[in-house]
């Protein structure tokens, strides 16, 4: 009797090796795949909690960014401070959330305002010391129910600065780091002198980890880190955040961005760093059900903008060039709702040329001497304007 049963069992096993293998491997694979889905948030929450303890020690987290980028503060405490600061603003937001109502059109209005201010921002006089380098326009945040993002409740504007109109040669010592959209700039904006390290699907997490990033000049995979250490660049343009929308949350993104900028600053102490806003997506592509929407993109942009100090790190918001009144990427500029058609990169090119930064020698000296001014000035880039 028993022998019969065993035989029967063997028959089943013999008849479905594939099902059994799939089920068996699933035991090992599923926990691994679970991780890819971006559950590392849990870890991140732990960081925020531990960060809270150090909150008393730093008065202003944002001001510290400039200092951190210079590599002065390289310990864990500073990171804790920055995270704590982020938590503070989150709490503030939550307080307000009760009285505020969802309103996407409100959002639209603000972005239109943003458009106007954008234009004036380019022409205004150099900012006074007490003025903030990067301005934010606040709006009523909507409630979001995502582990990847929350509504930032504000829109970041291009860092206020007395930009100069430059020509092509400005970009001869520039390097662009980014994803498929930067690839578009490489292909169609015509900055022939600049170096481009970009790949489809690049993320801020992979940028310094990948051993092979495509150098668009040669089309070959190279070790970007080596080149960045050897060659000296005058400008670094970085635009990453689209492929991060569904991977980790915004504080994690900001933390990693900071880490990357710090590393870049170490390798390129003289370079002007441009943090470029991620372009919004079209109305059709905007999906509130998933993490792929403009609220999330804006959340990432606001986070990235807080890294700008108006001295050697600048935030450039190209969105007003291509978006409609409600902040959607204009449908006629794009096929897939994400990337611009080749011919529209000209506009982007002009925009980047209009935002040249020429530092006077005294300014340069200040920066390289590691003046703590930025850190002391509690208003710089505080991000609550």
């Amino acid at each position, binding site marked *: 009797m028993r022998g019969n049963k065993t035989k029967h069992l063997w028959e089943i096993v013999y*008849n479905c090796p*594939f099902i059994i*293998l799939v089920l068996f*491997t699933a035991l090992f*694979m*599923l926990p691994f795949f679970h991780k890819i889905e971006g559950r590392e948030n849990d870890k991140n929450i732990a960081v925020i909690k531990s960060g809270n303890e150090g909150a008393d020690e730093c008065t202003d987290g944002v001001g510290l960014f400039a200092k951190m980028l210079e590599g002065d503060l390289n310990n864990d405490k500073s990171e804790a401070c920055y995270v704590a600061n982020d938590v503070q603003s989150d709490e503030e937001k939550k307080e307000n959330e009760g009285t505020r109502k969802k309103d996407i059109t409100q959002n639209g209005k603000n972005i239109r305002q943003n458009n106007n201010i954008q234009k004036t921002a380019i022409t205004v006089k150099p900012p006074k010391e007490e003025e903030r380098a990067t301005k934010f326009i606040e709006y009523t945040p909507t409630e979001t129910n995502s582990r990847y993002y929350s509504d930032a409740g504000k829109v970041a504007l291009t860092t206020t600065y007395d930009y100069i109109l430059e020509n092509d040669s400005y970009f001869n010592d520039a390097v662009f780091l980014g994803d498929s959209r930067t690839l578009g700039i490489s292909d169609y904006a015509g900055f022939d002198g600049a170096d481009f390290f970009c790949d*489809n699907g690049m993320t801020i997490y992979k940028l310094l980890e990948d051993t092979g990033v495509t150098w668009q000049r040669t089309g070959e995979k190279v070790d970007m880190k080596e080149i960045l250490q050897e060659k000296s660049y005058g400008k670094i343009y970085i635009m990453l955040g689209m*492929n991060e929308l569904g991977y980790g949350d915004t504080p994690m993104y900001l933390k990693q961005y900071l880490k990357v900028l710090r590393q870049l600053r170490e390798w390129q102490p003289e370079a002007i760093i441009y943090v470029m806003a991620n372009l919004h997506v079209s109305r059709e592509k905007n999906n509130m059900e998933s993490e792929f929407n403009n609220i999330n993109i804006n959340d990432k942009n606001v986070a990235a903008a807080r890294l700008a100090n108006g001295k050697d790190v600048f935030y450039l918001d190209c969105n007003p060039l291509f978006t409609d009144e409600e902040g959607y990427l204009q449908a006629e500029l794009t096929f897939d709702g*994400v990337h611009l058609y*080749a011919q529209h990169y000209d506009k982007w090119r002009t925009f980047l040329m209009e935002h040249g930064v020429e530092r006077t020698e005294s300014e340069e000296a200040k920066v390289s001497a590691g003046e703590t001014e930025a850190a002391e000035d509690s208003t710089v880039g505080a991000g609550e304007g």
Partner: protein
Amino acid sequence: MLFSSVGFLFRFLPIFIIIYVALPKYRNIILLLGSLIFYGVGEPYFVLLLLLSILVNYGLSRYMFWEPRSPQTNRRQKTARRKKRALALAAVLDLSVLFVFKYWDFTAKSVNSLAGHDYLPLLALTLPLGISFYTFQMLSYQIDCYRGTVEKQAGLLTFAAYICMFPQLIAGPIVRYGEVEQRLLDRKVRIRDLENGLKLFTAGLGLKVLLANQIGTLWNSIMTAGAGRLHTLVAWLGAFAYSFQIYFDFWGYSVMAIGLGKMLGFSIPRNFNNPYVSRSLSEFWRRWHMTLGRWFREYVYFPLGGSRKGRMRTVFNLFVVWALTGLWHGANWNFVLWGITFFLLISLEKRTYGKWMERNAVFGHMYTLLLIPVTWVIFGITDIGQLAGYLENLIGLHREKVLVGTTQLFRYLREYALLLIACVIFSTPLPGKLYWKWKDRWFMVLFLLAVFWWSVYEMMSGSNNPFLYFRF
């Protein structure tokens, strides 16, 4: 829910299969409920439309089979009249639902632009998932009942299960009732069927995720750069990439459907038979989306008289069939144009060089391989201005400055070389033959296991990579 999603693979499917196998007495009701959940997850409201549509169609088919008790004089005549009435009503109702959801805005826009005034309002309705497929399936049932092909009417549960069964609900194949009737009434689920079904499903999943989705990014990046500004070779590369994408996408889906059907104890008909090795466009359509071709042939072309009513009538019949085939694929002028292109080319083939081409295989293959990508470009670009630009680029005309030139061409070739080779190989009958020959050998089992997990990996990382292009 899509087959190539984590939710389907690791939640819905295993739970469903366990319940389905464990309760053999209630298979149809489990199948129906499971399918409604499968559909309802993505379309919580339209599932009601589906149910309503099933009830109405079931009622009408009952009416068709209804026999009055009392003896009547001209009984046969009355039955015929009743059947006709029921069929007409079913056709009108089913097609008007399809029309309102799928074609109303298109018609309204066309009328308004012709009249130069906004007479008809736009409704901007969302298209219920799979409505084109299940409408056609219901109509095929009604027509088969009318013709007597279906001899014994299905019960409500059987009919609902036949329409809703999730393997083929949202993207075909369009199954005829006669093909699954026996299995619907009584079916066994054997362990071998589960095994072979899952293998087939995996093969389809691989085609969809590892070939279609991957090559789709090439077409997408070319279109993203902008039609009308492409180097001629880039335009051709894009056309081929899109041809591969659409084939592997749809073929993969059909294979997954057949595999799932097998797991549940059904044999769902084949939908593709190596279409890209055809020697003419007529042959192509005998091998591409075969269940749709069959539908139009049996329910439109033959009733119109096919090719038996003289030359002019044949041409007219072909025109009707192709215009409708075009429109079925989408409510837009480019789909009409796509259908008309096939009408012109196939009529031309039939009248002139078709026979000659079947004999001269080399020429026939080249002819098909050059024309098919062009037809897919017409299919793929809904904006008529862009379509014109792309077609001009294909024949070497450039009105705008070429922005996507040889630099990008070489990059694309380098990036996609392996994938393109794989796509070419999988367009031949060879992989299919090897699969059927070796499907039970251990190395094929291991290969499929690798395909399975690789696909799952791509699917999951794809959710982090919004640039992947899904199209269902």
